[in-house]
């Protein structure tokens, strides 16, 4: 399967993230890079600008801007040309999916098909081919897995933001090792420590962020929340929010609740859960009898 990678306004974090895929060498045997900014490719970027044929999957990284000229050609023209050729258009990273960090504070910047949650019209004709793979950066397994499924001719079920449900139907809370603390509403957390829930004080967005970070561990080892840092919600259309390290609250009540949970029911349940003061959760478990 022939892949063409275009970079818009980007830190290249997603291109680098792909290099962390442990089986990259084997995986690559099934794919051919017409162009990738870091990996050996059949064409130079100059040749891509001049025009080539045969792109099957167009992969776009970075925030889109109508004014962007990468080398000589407007970026928009490149997307139109290769988007029309390709069977699938895959955006990698939250910048390409929704606008992300590089869209902050600038007019006229967005993801390829969305500005935040709002669909944009620029590439409307290509929308039906699009698959969004947000993340800051993307998890390499999500990209290689999606491409492998596309190569196998699978139809990927997508959510309303065109994210594959296989990877984004879950929340980051799913698989979090701190769930006992979440259940009893205990945020006895210190950064870097392995215990305590970070939802109540430390800004953790895992309960309302769609992603597989705690199901598919980074480098096969770890995730932010397992390691002691709150989930920053990097796969969501409103990333980045302000104040990532503190939980925004209204008189002590988290302003944002786990996805799908009604506020009244949550508060009722939280009131009951908090009533059980379970001593073992208030000091490091290794010191517990």
């Amino acid at each position: 399967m022939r892949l063409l990678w275009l970079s818009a306004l980007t830190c290249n974090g997603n291109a680098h993230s792909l290099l962390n895929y442990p089986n990259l060498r084997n995986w690559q045997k099934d794919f051919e890079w017409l162009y990738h900014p870091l990996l050996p490719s059949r064409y130079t970027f100059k040749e891509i600008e001049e025009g080539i044929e045969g792109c099957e999957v167009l992969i776009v990284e970075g925030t889109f801007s109508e004014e962007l000229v990468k080398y000589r050609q407007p970026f928009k023209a490149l997307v139109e040309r290769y988007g029309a050729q390709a069977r699938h258009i895959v955006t990698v990273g939250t910048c390409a999916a929704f606008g992300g960090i590089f869209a902050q504070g600038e007019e006229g910047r967005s993801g390829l098909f969305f500005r935040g949650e709002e669909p944009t019209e620029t590439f409307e004709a290509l929308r039906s081919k699009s698959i969004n793979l947000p993340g800051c950066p993307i998890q390499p397994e999500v990209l290689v897995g999606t491409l492998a499924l596309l190569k196998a001719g699978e139809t990927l079920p997508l959510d309303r933001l065109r994210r594959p449900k296989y990877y984004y139907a879950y929340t980051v809370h799913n698989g979090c090792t701190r769930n006992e603390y979440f259940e009893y509403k205990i945020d006895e957390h210190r950064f870097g420590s392995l215990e305590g829930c970070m939802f109540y004080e430390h800004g953790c967005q895992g309960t309302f962020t769609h992603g597989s970070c705690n199901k598919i561990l980074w480098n096969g080892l770890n995730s932010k929340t397992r390691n002691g840092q709150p989930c920053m919600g990097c796969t969501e259309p409103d990333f980045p929010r302000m104040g990532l390290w503190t939980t925004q609250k209204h008189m002590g009540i988290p302003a944002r609740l786990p996805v799908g949970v009604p506020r009244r029911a949550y508060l009722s349940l939280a009131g009951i859960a908090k009533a059980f003061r379970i001593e073992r959760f208030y000091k490091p478990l290794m010191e517990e009898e």
Partner: protein
Amino acid sequence: MKKKQPGEKKERRRLEIITGALKLFARKGFYATTIPDIARSIGMSVGNLYNYFSSKELLAQAIIRHISAQLGAKIRVVNESDLSSREKIEKIVTIYFETAQKEPEMIDFFLRIYLSNREVFREGCEGMICVNEFVTEIMIFFDDGVARGELRNQDFFSAFGLFMGYLGGMVFLAGEAILPKPLEAYVDEISTNIYRALKAE
């Protein structure tokens, strides 16, 4: 005529016990009132009453849950209305004072038995479990007010204590016949005070 379901009858009897017990507790005090007293007051056998509540402690816990649910349901209506936070405060104060006047034994139980005899509620009513429905509605009131920019974002208990402590104190003064005016005469001023203390700057 609709035939009463057995569960319905049981629920009605349960409510009779709660109401009867509330009246006796208010008149004679919690410790001086016995289960046989309560049974006699509602014309029920002691044995049958024990089928509903196996101890006076469990009955007391059911009563506080009942009061919390009643008040909670009334405040929920206010929360679900389109009123401003200022207007909601007035409604909540009115509900609280009306309950204190029409069903004085309810607030009386809360102030004189629930708050004063914690040993009765230690097991089964940990934390705020037994007043959960009421507290949840107050939380939702605060939460909405802050989200709409009408109330100042502050510590929950600072606000909760100010609101509920104030109302409880006034009802206590009314109960002791110290207040020169009837409770409802204070609604406006008290609502203003609470609003001033809670409003966004």
